[in-house]
């Protein structure tokens, strides 16, 4: 093999004063970065393999290991950046498509960071969620435009029957991550955490392991173009069905599960042979247009209809069409949404930020008078509770989180999910690695995260003088923009900071 021009991304600094040669790092690294040298009784580093996951540094009992970015740099060039040059080296050596994991990491403008929230002063007392009720409960699903009562002797009776709703106690759901892309223990942690918190997790397109059937009440079952693991029982056991049309990380293409991650258990759940790549078709081959989608929705509606699209430039009319085709909930996934495996060029260059997509969809549905007919779940790069509050103020009913959930479980965002060598036991099927993730601890961490974010959302609502989340939903008066053009403010439907009511 010829010399690789691709430089090491990281440096492994091992403090010889501290290292006791216990070999924890050797055993922990699935990338073989740490090798024990028997002759010299020392550990040597293979920096070229390091992905920067920090597993070794975290577990080293003497804190002897430091992982840093390789400071060695290319000559400064605004166009031919180190990233560009390294990508070309990589492709010149492999001849393939650049692959990556997690969401878009390019420095694109974050509209979340350019929006600020309102708070009450003097004329409107802020509400203290520690002392007063503060309600986050949300009903996801289609609503009638009005309700009707009929007279019954003494009183009156409701004649309007609400269609099935997903009721959540906090406006946060776990987004689609398949069994396959993530481990059994990671799925179990998500399912149990969703049950504890009173929300939902999403199976992704990997089917559902039979062990997880008891969590069906908190499960959204995805039907994607590959139809992996889709059968009657699967659809029946879940509380809702999501038809995946696209994904924010890779609009226009289907899912990728590298054969390295297709173990015996995965093969049974997905109904595919062990070790084969599970590459979903880009479109559903039974959905070539909206009328086909309508047929699929009604075919699946014996449980409940429910669909997912990626945020693309004309997201608003597509969402409208999907609702008219019979969907009860529309999920929109933004440019920064994550993935277990996607071509880098597509992840980084296709789609629009979720903030703009929410604003456009919410406005369009209101203009068409059909906003009540479906709920909107937004996904794609929610980093904290403030992002969520802003998304709901723009018009989302709830949000999907996945990257944040993985980080809560221990993910260090090394973006190597597609290799199947996740040292944290999350995005891997290697039994030696998966047992590292304790599902009980991971569940606790997920519950803690949702609990913490919910408390923060309540604090922010209280500050605005609001005590129910529905009074925030679509209430763009509580948002102000900084550093945006008038056009961007108009698309988001918000005023500039400094403008009064």
């Amino acid at each position, binding site marked *: 093999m010829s010399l690789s021009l691709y430089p090491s991304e990281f440096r492994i600094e091992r403090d010889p004063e501290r290292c006791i040669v216990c070999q924890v790092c050797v055993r922990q690294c699935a990338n073989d970065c740490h090798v024990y040298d028997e002759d010299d009784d020392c550990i040597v580093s293979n920096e070229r393999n390091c992905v920067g996951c920090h597993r070794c540094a975290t577990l080293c009992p003497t804190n002897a290991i430091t992982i840093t970015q390789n400071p060695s740099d290319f000559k400064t060039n605004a166009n031919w950046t180190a990233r560009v040059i390294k990508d070309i080296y990589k492709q010149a050596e492999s001849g393939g498509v650049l692959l990556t994991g997690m969401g878009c990491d390019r420095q694109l403008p974050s509209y979340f960071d350019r929006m600020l929230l309102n708070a009450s002063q003097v004329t409107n007392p802020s509400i203290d969620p520690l002392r007063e009720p503060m309600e986050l409960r949300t009903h996801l699903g289609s609503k009638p*435009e009005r309700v009707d009562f009929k007279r019954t002797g003494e009183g009156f009776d409701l004649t*309007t029957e609400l269609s099935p*709703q997903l009721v959540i106690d906090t406006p946060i759901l776990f987004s689609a991550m398949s069994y396959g892309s993530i481990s059994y223990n990671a799925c179990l942690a998500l399912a149990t955490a969703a049950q504890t918190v009173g929300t939902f997790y999403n199976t992704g397109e990997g089917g559902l392991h039979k062990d997880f059937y008891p969590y069906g009440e908190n499960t959204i079952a995805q039907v994607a173009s590959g139809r992996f693991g889709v059968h009657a029982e699967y659809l029946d056991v879940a509380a809702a069905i999501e038809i995946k049309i696209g994904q924010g990380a890779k609009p226009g293409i289907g899912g990728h599960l590298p054969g390295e991650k297709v173990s015996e258990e995965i093969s049974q759940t997905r109904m595919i042979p062990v070790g084969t790549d599970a590459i979903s078709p880009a479109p559903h081959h039974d959905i070539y247009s909206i009328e086909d989608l309508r047929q699929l929705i009604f075919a699946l509606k014996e449980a409940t209809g429910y669909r997912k699209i990626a945020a693309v430039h004309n997201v608003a009319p597509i969402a409208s069409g999907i609702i008219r085709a019979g969907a009860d909930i529309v999920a929109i996934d933004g440019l920064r949404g994550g993935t277990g495996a996607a071509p880098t060029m597509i992840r980084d260059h296709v789609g629009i930020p979720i903030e703009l997509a929410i604003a456009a969809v919410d406005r369009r549905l209101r203009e068409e008078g059909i906003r009540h007919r479906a709920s909107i779940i937004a996904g794609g790069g929610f980093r904290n509770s403030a992002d969520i509050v802003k998304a709901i103020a723009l018009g989302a009913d709830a949000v999907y989180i996945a990257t944040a959930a993985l980080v809560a479980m221990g993910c260090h965002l090394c973006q190597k999910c597609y290799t199947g060598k996740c040292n944290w036991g999350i995005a891997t099927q290697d039994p030696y690695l998966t047992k590292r993730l304790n599902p009980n601890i991971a569940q606790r961490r997920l519950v803690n995260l949702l609990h913490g974010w919910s408390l923060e959302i309540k604090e922010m609502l209280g500050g605005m003088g609001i005590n129910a989340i529905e*009074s925030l939903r679509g209430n763009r008066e509580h948002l102000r923009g900084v550093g945006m053009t008038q056009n961007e403010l108009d698309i988001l439907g918000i005023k500039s900071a400094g403008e009064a009511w």
Partner: protein
Amino acid sequence: MGQFYEKDISGCGIVGFVNENGKVVPGDRIITAMTTMHERGNGLGGGFAAYGIYPERADCYAFHMLYDHPESKTKTEAYFETKCIIEMDEPIPTRQNAFVSNPPILWRYFLKLKPESIQGGDEEDAIVRIVMEINARIEGAFVASGGKNMGVFKGVGFPEDIGEYYRLDEYEAYTWTGHGRFPTNSQGWWGGAHPFSLLDWTVVHNGEISSYGINKRYLEHFGYQCTCYTDTEVLAYLFDLLIRKHQLPIEIAAKIVCAHFWDEIERMDEQQREIYRTLRAVYASALVNGPFAVVIGHTHGIVGLSDRMKLRPLIAARDGETLYIASEDSAIREICPQPEKVWMPRAGEPVIGLLKSPQQQETAASLQRMALFQLQNSK
């Protein structure tokens, strides 16, 4: 009107009373009640609503107009001519006093709709369209009220001076509501004073509506345009939507804008739980949040309502056939020193006073409404 803010953050004093037998009393009583709450306003707005004041023209829509200049009056009248028959029009009588300055042109019209204006058959929808059109499109013209046999009298000044200016002592009404305003960020604008009105709905409001942004967008879906540059108008439109358009009982409408907390709903019996769960899910965007106390006036009576945590004061009293609702006890006792019963309504709990005799039944629509109100009474 671009210089005005969209939302009016204000602290205020409100009062309202209804004689449930429809007996009329002159307007000096409501002025007296408002005077005791002088301190709750700052002289930047006062106003009154009166029901039963035009019995001789009870079949006409009485439009009380505020005009900034003669051109807006000319334009509005030309617009009226296209849609309505003007049975009579005249200046609203006023009495100069030292405390009211720069009034707009105040004019009232008694209108009947031309048959061709009633697209789709609902007369009241046609009136709503006319009101929205004038407020949104005719510069300098503002509809203070446009209901039958009722009127709104409002302006910039303390309520007692505004009441004196409009010669309210010369009117007799079975329902009066009043408002003294303490705006914190709004300029002196006659249209910005309370009550806000649509058809025969009037709202006097103390507080701030933090859910305004979504309430406004929700109402736009049903064709209501928020043009008054204040949060209060959403309450008038919400009640019009819920009661007139959606035909909901008044108590249910109150429980939509002031929803039960989820933990209260969970403690209800199954049938009630399903009712209130459905209401909250379907009418989530009609929940009114933030501190407020309101008195909503209507041909058939009044409703007092405070927010779910009662962050603004509201007190009620009953004496015989009259129900009183006010921000302060003093306002009631000034005009009714020994009421039979005085009570503090709980947070979010509506206080409803309705006419007993069906004397206001001009149209089939209002008959239907009466049935709903009586249904409530019978509970």
